[in-house]
């Protein structure tokens, strides 16, 4: 008999697990522990409309307090889980409390990868991960502020776009030869770099930051080639790593994240995990992955919740991602690693085009720039392992769904 379910982590996965567990009829004790003092909220707007002030904090919340009250959710907010004793199914919290569970769901998320160069510990080196990171960045976003962003990935470029829209003089420093190099095709990188430059963002690739300089706070970023950039505001977005200390200390199997199977179950049968912290099998792509994705957090949390309720469910989804930069929407579905063919539909000069990836004739991933039709069609086609006619695929006049 499962009478107590403990969820650790108040992000997308934690919020969704609560929702599914109650919706599917779990009547027992349901506890959410989150080290953030806020009710669970959405993170994607933190680098976009929340950072710009267009969206109030209240609108980030998944649910209001009344939902948790009405559904009998015990919220333990601003409290950290410090120790997990899997043998006796007990978690120790930072306030000294101990919680004994029947099933535990770890939704620990990921944390920003930290810079390690000299000066990285100076005050004023900002990361953007939680709502608590926002006010200090936001207060500097005004006309004339010299903003330096280290890292040209999603967070770096979204923050750059927001800062630029608010009048900052923005420089993005990227170590690789192109922005978003790990997640998109080179012509997509080129397109976004061009869009940023057109808006006045200074994008510099092939540059490695070697130290941060300043007296009482960071004032300057120094690169390996000797160039330096004055910074009134410095934001670092150089990737994320899974939060898995609690799990690994408890002896759960961990690699690039907490290892789970397709049921979202960890190496301990009473413990499940979901979201950014998991290293999980992707059935469609026949590989293990760790994904930083709202969609994955949502779907894994749902799957974990159903399995906890002893309704065997497999996590078998094609992941998707999006990014908003200026007036551009980048929509990605699938995973492109290991592709053997890449086909671009349409001309980037029209500000709307799509890059398709294939492997062994099957569509495996799509990057759609301002093209929601291709993206939506691809979601189904990739899941179905559909095999396009390459000539039709390359013809933007043929709808993607008609190219099969």
């Amino acid at each position, binding site marked *: 008999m499962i009478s107590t379910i403990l969820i650790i982590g108040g992000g997308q996965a934690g919020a969704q697990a609560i929702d599914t567990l109650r919706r599917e009829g779990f009547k027992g004790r349901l506890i959410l522990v989150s080290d953030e003092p806020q009710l669970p909220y*959405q993170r*994607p*707007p933190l680098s976009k409309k929340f950072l710009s002030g267009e969206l109030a904090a209240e*609108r980030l919340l*998944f*649910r*209001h307090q009344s*939902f948790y009250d009405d559904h009998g959710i015990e919220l333990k907010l601003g409290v950290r889980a410090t120790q997990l004793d899997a043998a006796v199914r007990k978690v120790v919290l930072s306030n000294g409390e101990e919680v004994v569970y029947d099933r535990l769901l770890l939704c620990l998320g990921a944390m920003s990868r930290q810079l390690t160069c000299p000066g990285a510990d100076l005050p004023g080196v900002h990361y953007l991960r939680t709502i608590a990171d926002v006010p200090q960045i936001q207060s500097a976003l005004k006309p004339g502020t010299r903003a330096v962003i280290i890292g040209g990935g999603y967070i770096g470029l979204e923050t750059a776009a927001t800062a630029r829209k608010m009048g900052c003089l923005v420089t993005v420093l990227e170590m690789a030869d192109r922005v978003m190099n790990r997640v998109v095709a080179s012509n997509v990188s080129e397109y976004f770099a061009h869009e940023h430059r057109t808006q006045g963002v200074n994008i510099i690739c092939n540059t490695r930051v070697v130290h941060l300089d300043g007296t009482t706070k960071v004032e300057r970023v120094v690169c390996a080639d000797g160039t330096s950039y004055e910074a009134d505001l410095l934001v670092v977005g150089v990737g994320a790593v899974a939060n898995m200390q609690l799990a690994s200390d408890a002896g759960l199997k961990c690699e690039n994240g907490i290892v789970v199977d397709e049921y979202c179950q960890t190496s301990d049968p009473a413990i499940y995990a979901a979201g950014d912290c998991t290293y999980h099998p992707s059935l469609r792509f026949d590989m293990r992955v760790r994904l930083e994705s*709202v*969609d994955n957090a*949502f779907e894994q949390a749902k799957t974990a919740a159903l399995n906890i309720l002893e309704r065997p469910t497999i996590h078998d989804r094609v992941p*998707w991602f*999006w990014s*908003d930069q200026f007036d551009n*929407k980048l*929509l990605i579905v699938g995973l492109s690693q290991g592709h053997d063919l890449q086909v671009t539909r349409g001309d980037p000069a029209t500000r709307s085009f799509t890059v398709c990836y294939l492997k062994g004739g099957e569509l495996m991933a799509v990057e759609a720039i*301002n*093209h*929601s*039709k291709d*993206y*939506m*069609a691809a*979601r*189904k086609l990739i899941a179905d392992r559909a095999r396009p006619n390459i000539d039709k695929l390359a013809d933007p006049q043929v709808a993607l*769904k008609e190219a099969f």
Partner: protein
Amino acid sequence: MAQVTVVFVQPDGSRREIVAPVGITLMEAARQNNVSGIVAQCGGACACATCHVYVKESWLPKLQPPEDMEEGMLETAWEPRANSRLSCQVQITAALDGLEVTVPEHQA
């Protein structure tokens, strides 16, 4: 703050009236009130088509028309119709007091 009443009809015909403040989106109003069937996975970024609704025809002229991105999302949403909208793209205004929408049987 000005408020309006909007009605969500479930596929089984059951109706739920909710009171929502002007200025948020129809999706947010649904989520705040735990309306069944509005998933809104992307949280209003027009990236997932899981907040799809059918708008009662008489209300369509009172809504801002969909932009290209929304139309593209709807084309392959679950059973799109001429009165399909993504509720995250519908801003609640005073003119929408009494708006009635139906939730589809499935989302994308």
